[in-house]
Every structure is written in structure tokens, then in C-alpha cells.
């Protein structure tokens, strides 16, 4: 059997460069001074262009990058911990919990980004905890199946809760805010948001990157993982809390962004190999590229903004269907 055609290290480097390229292009794409973009030279003379790029586009770009990387890392981590390639951050009550928290914050606690993040994180982790507790009490099926079932129940509970909050929200001010937030988008983010979310996202990204080899162990059956020295409960808990905290915090900014956490880990595994040693950094880079690309489409395609969640779902679902039908996407031929 031949060596893999592509050295994973060079592959990661190449994607890092693609990410930088996409970001550099995205900075100049937009509806100023005319539709679809500005010449880079304009940045030197036009103070409005400078303010636009520095105060609006740059923070938004960075948040999109964090969003994509975090969702992808979270998806990949959960898929490996739960030994199920169809798991994503929306699973286990995390996203719906965070959505409920954000709606609570909009209704009663105010729109301050830090407060929204903390409530979303609190309810996101709460969703995870409730799912876990319920799964322990279920008397049906294996551990993974019980988690899935409990996750479905808790998610439904929280989305019903969001429905109640929408019903009692002020239809002129609060309701539109909740609705747009639920559709998912980054139109209002600025530097303040970026700096508030950065520590949360960094916690999840750095923890999962550092523990990526352990993540491989956790994807084995319990006996095998234990025999290789894994502390199953502790390591699972550390990874899940770190990555869920990051996801809930960034979800409080962006709203629910579907499909990134499901589809990107699949592509990363196909291209960089299954081992999280390579596939986790690959998922972070690809997630960043995908989300920055989608967000650029969201803000430039039409004069009015398209919610980011709609674009990621549209492209994500199409890519997922394509991926499931094709077998020729592998770089590692055999």
C-alpha cells in the first residue's frame, strides 16, 4: 500500500494559508463604496473605508472565524466522545439551552453581550447537565442511545421554553430581536463582542487542541480506553465542559448556526485522516474558512442581510448530501 499522497502537516499549512486568503478577500468584499467591494488602495485614503473595515468588518470576520472553529471543534469532540459520527453541538440540549438563555437575557436581563454570554453559557451547560442526569435515569437502550433520547427530550423542553418566551415578549421590540437572533447571524457584532467571547472560545479551542490525542482514546470502547490509561469520566467531563462553554458563549452572539458542527468534522476526517491529532486542527481551520465564506455571502449577496444560519444550513445540507453519495473525496487512496 502506498504512503498517503498528502502529508497532513502540509495539508494543514495549506488550509491555514487558504483561511488567511479568504479572510483577506472578505475584508474588501462588501457594499461600500459600491456593491461587491472596494479596491484595497481605497483603505489608504478614505477614512470612512478605514472605519468600516476596522470597526465593522474586522471584528465580524474574527467572530465568524471563532464561531466556525468552535462549532467544528465542538462537533468533532462530541462525535468522538459519544462514538457517533452524527452528533453535533445541537445535540444534548446545548444549543437549545443556550437559545433559551439568550431569550431570557433579551427579555429580562438586557442586551449586554457579557450578560447574554453568561446566561447562554449557564443554560447551555444546564442543558448538558439535564441531558446527562436524564440519560442516567432512562431504563432503555445503551448509554449512547440514552444520551441521544435524553438530548432530544431536553432540547424539545428548551425550545418549548423559547416558544413561551416569544409568546410573552413585547411584539414590537423584544420579539423581533429574539426571532432574528434565532435565525442566526453576525450583523451586530463589534469589537466589544469579540473581546467578551474570546476567552470562552479560547478555553474550548485550546483545551480540545491540547487534549486531542486523548480524544482518540475516548473514541474507543471503555475497556480499551481504560487499558490505555484514560481516566474516562474525568477526561470526558473536562473536554465536554470546555467545549460546551465555548459553544454556548459564541451561540449567544451568533444565534443558532446549524450544520457547521456536523458537516465540517466529516470533511476534516476525510481529508486529514480520522485521528483527532490531525482532524481536530483541520476541522478548526475548515470551520473557519466555511463560516467566514458563508458570512461574507450573508452580508454581500443582497442589499439586505441574509441570516447566516440560513446560508450555512443550505450549503451544509448540500455538502452533506454530496459527501454521503461520493466515495471519491479521499486524498488517501488505497
Amino acid at each position: 500500500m502506498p504512503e498517503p499522497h498528502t502529508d497532513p502537516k502540509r495539508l494543514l499549512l495549506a488550509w491555514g494559508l487558504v483561511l488567511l486568503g479568504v479572510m483577506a478577500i472578505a475584508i474588501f468584499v462588501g457594499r461600500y463604496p459600491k456593491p461587491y467591494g472596494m479596491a484595497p488602495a481605497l483603505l489608504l485614503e478614505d477614512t470612512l473605508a478605514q472605519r468600516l473595515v476596522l470597526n465593522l468588518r474586522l471584528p465580524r470576520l474574527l467572530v465568524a472565524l471563532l464561531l466556525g472553529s468552535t462549532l467544528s471543534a465542538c462537533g468533532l469532540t462530541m462525535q468522538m466522545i459519544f462514538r457517533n459520527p452524527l452528533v453535533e453541538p445541537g445535540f444534548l440540549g446545548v444549543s437549545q439551552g443556550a437559545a433559551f438563555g439568550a431569550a431570557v437575557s433579551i427579555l429580562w436581563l438586557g442586551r449586554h453581550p457579557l450578560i447574554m454570554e453568561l446566561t447562554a453559557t449557564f443554560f447551555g451547560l444546564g442543558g448538558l447537565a439535564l441531558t446527562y442526569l436524564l440519560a442516567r435515569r432512562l431504563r432503555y437502550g445503551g448509554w449512547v442511545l440514552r444520551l441521544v433520547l435524553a438530548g432530544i427530550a431536553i432540547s424539545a423542553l428548551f425550545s418549548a421554553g423559547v416558544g413561551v418566551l416569544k409568546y410573552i415578549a413585547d411584539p414590537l421590540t423584544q420579539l423581533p430581536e429574539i426571532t432574528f437572533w434565532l435565525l442566526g447571524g453576525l450583523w451586530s457584532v463589534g469589537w466589544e463582542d469579540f473581546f467578551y467571547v474570546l476567552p470562552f472560545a479560547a478555553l474550548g479551542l485550546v483545551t480540545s487542541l491540547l487534549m486531542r490525542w486523548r480524544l482518540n482514546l475516548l473514541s474507543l470502547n471503555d475497556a480499551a480506553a481504560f487499558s490505555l490509561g484514560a481516566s474516562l469520566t474525568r477526561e470526558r467531563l473536562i473536554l465536554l465542559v470546555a467545549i460546551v462553554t465555548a459553544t454556548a458563549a459564541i451561540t449567544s452572539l451568533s444565534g443558532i448556526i446549524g450544520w457547521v458542527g456536523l458537516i465540517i468534522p466529516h470533511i476534516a476526517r476525510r481529508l486529514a485522516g480520522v485521528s483527532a491529532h490531525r482532524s481536530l486542527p483541520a476541522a478548526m481551520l475548515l470551520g473557519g474558512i466555511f463560516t467566514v465564506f458563508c458570512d461574507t455571502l450573508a452580508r454581500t449577496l443582497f442589499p439586505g442581510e441574509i441570516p447566516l444560519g440560513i446560508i450555512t444550513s443550505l450549503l451544509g445540507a448540500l455538502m452533506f448530501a454530496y459527501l454521503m453519495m461520493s466515495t471519491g473525496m479521499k486524498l488517501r487512496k488505497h
Partner: protein
Amino acid sequence: MIIYLELTYRNDLINMNHTALTLENIRFRYAPEDNYVVDAVSLEIPSRKVTAILGPNGAGKTSLLHIILGLLQPHTGQVLVAGKPHRDYSKREISQIMGLVSQIDTIPFNFSVLECVLLGRSPYLDPFQTPRGIDFQIANRVLDELDLSHLRYKPVTELSGGERQMVHLARALVQETEILLLDEPTTHLDLGNQSRILSVLRELSARGITIVFTTHDPNVATFIADSVLLMDKGRIVEHGSVQETFTEAKLSAIYNVPIQVERQNGRVMVMMRKLGN
């Protein structure tokens, strides 16, 4: 098949001149309302020998193996590893002393063979470390020795049952442990693959590795086991050499069907006498 494993003996961790494993009055059950699946088991497993744990399905063989490993905590009694209580070792130390080849199970992710085998080096990596050059060297050497190099980049999910079991064995070998536990290593394998696995185990035993494996097939045990534990309903019924243990009366009793034992040129062969009771 010849294996040239150069094990780095870690005499600082354990002294293998001691009895490898001592079980003292071990009892275990999964829930308080259940019966004990391992019931008052006391025994000594000698170093550098092959011990087979034999018994019908549900006798408690796998549970006993998981108790030795430390995955299950016994309700009473304790396990001594080379004379020292199991709990006095850290988890990392145990994973450098004992390796496990668990029963074949489905793998949801198609790791390549090399990635899978590299996981066996985890006991020697710090929590945030990824495999180093030396780990790749050891993994590749073991793959060479087990004649698996040609499969190095193949996804594990595309392997045959025999190849997959060999890969799991390779993963346990790169762990470089003094004690190797195997749970039903030959189940689901055809005769050719059974023979290959058993010959590797015999070679490892000759190199001083202590081997403990479970099986429900007496004929697998007769090939390589120095001693046999007969288990039934959580208890050790017999413990001795193959010649002593495999008698028609004892085997018929634990399998609950008439069993015929043939002895030819010092080999013991076990078969059903007729169908049913």
C-alpha cells in the same frame, strides 16, 4: 512466525519474579439486586506463563478480566499486581504494566491501522503530548514483526476479522507491558487466523510475557495454556494444568452437555459426544 520484540523492561515498576497477579476473595455484581457475576474468587496467576480462563458464556470471564484490569471495582477483596495492591499503582503505571486486547467490537471511525496501533503508545505520552518519533518507530517495528506493514494506511473498518484482531494485538504490544490480557482472542476467527494468533501468543510467552486470556473453547486453551481456570457461575471450579483439568466429568458438568475428551500423543482434544443432554 518469529517475533523480535525488544521490550524495555521497567523493573522499577514491578518485579516479575513475584506472582504476577494475586486475587484475594474477589466478589463483584453489577447491581445490588443481581447475583454475583464473580463470586469469592481467590487465585494466583504465575509470571511468564499462559493462563486460560475457560467457561461457558456468562460464566463471568470478561468481568474477571475487567476486575484484574481495574475497570471494575470488586465489592470485596483485592487484586495484587506483583505483590502490591492494584490501587497503589497510578492509572498510568497500570497501563504500562497490563495491556488488554478486548473483544472485537464495531469501531465508528475508520482509523488507519497505523493510527490505531499508535494509540497503544498513549501510556507513555503526557496528557497533552502527541506521538513522538520513537512511538512511530515502535509502532512500525511491531507492524513489521506481525507482518502487517502492508496494511499500514488501510482503514481498520476495511480489514478482515483476523487482520483486525492482529491489529488489536499489535496495539497491545506497542504498549510494551509485562502482562497481556486477552478477551476471547480467537472467537469469530477461522482456523488459520486462530492458529496465527495463538502462535504469536506462544512466542510472546517464550519471551517472558505473562498472558491471561479468556475463551469458551477448550481446544484453544489446550494449545498454549500452561494452566487453566475453569469458571462457572462466577466461581472458579477448577484450577490446574490442561491434563488435570480437562476431564470428561468436569467439562460435562460446566457445559451441561456430554463431553468427550481424547488424548493423543500428549495432546488433549475436547468435543461434544452428542447433541442435547
